[in-house]
């Protein structure tokens, strides 16, 4: 009888560890799926938003140390500013010029952050998180990078 109880306890222990394992696998999967879902949604939202405004318009890309700005030549000029924080976070916001701005001059003049804070407004935050966001030029192509996804937003002619 004692042996029987001991064997039964062993079987129970195996069964319980299996249940525990199922629950951990399930919770881990749900976390990873919801993270990846959020990432895809963020990416698609940002991409479709920027794409709708840049399409067919001239643009300039200005890089600084801690931030870069993609200026789109509409009336008024619209910009997308990515600010990089030292802890790895990125902040993407959309800015709109209050004054008449010539984007070619802005590029040549290399105006600083104060200029954009004073003369641009509507700081809608499109993204804040630790995914890696970049605007880059590859030859004549303007590229938007979201982690390892590379999207060509336009071409300088």
């Amino acid at each position, binding site marked *: 009888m004692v042996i029987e109880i001991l064997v039964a306890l062993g*079987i129970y222990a195996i069964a319980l560890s299996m249940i525990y394992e199922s629950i951990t696998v399930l919770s881990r999967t749900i976390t990873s799926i919801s993270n990846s879902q959020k990432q895809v949604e963020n990416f698609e939202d940002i991409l479709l938003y920027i794409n709708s405004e840049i399409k067919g318009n001239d643009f300039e890309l200005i890089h600084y140390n801690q931030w870069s700005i993609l200026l789109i030549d509409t009336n008024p000029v619209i910009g997308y500013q990515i600010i990089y924080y030292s802890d790895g976070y990125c902040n993407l916001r959309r800015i709109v010029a209050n004054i008449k701005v010539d984007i070619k001059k802005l590029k040549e003049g290399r105006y600083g952050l104060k200029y954009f804070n004073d003369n641009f407004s509507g700081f809608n935050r499109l993204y804040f998180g630790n995914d890696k966001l970049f605007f880059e030029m590859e030859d004549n192509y303007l590229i938007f990078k979201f982690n390892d996804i590379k999207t060509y937003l336009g071409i300088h002619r």
Partner: protein
Amino acid sequence: MKKGEILLEALIFLILSFILFFVVISFVSHMMERQALIEKGGRELSDLTSISNILNYNDLPESLLKKFTTYESSGGSTTYEYRSIITGESFKFKKGNGGN
């Protein structure tokens, strides 16, 4: 209590937890596959946006052309085909002699 009843109960419990484990595993793998497809969809959106933004097929960069299936056709021109993983739809264009 009859002899062997405790063992029988333990075995039933083991079998039930086995079933739970398999149900969870199949659910998880199903969700993973679905999520992989959603991620591919994100990448496909990126590709299609890129292609539509460049407008002129002659300007497409190499890294995008790699995503097309190519067919050599007569007269030195090449036909490129992009097939969607998600919807299965495809579009083609010709590049080379006399084609665009």
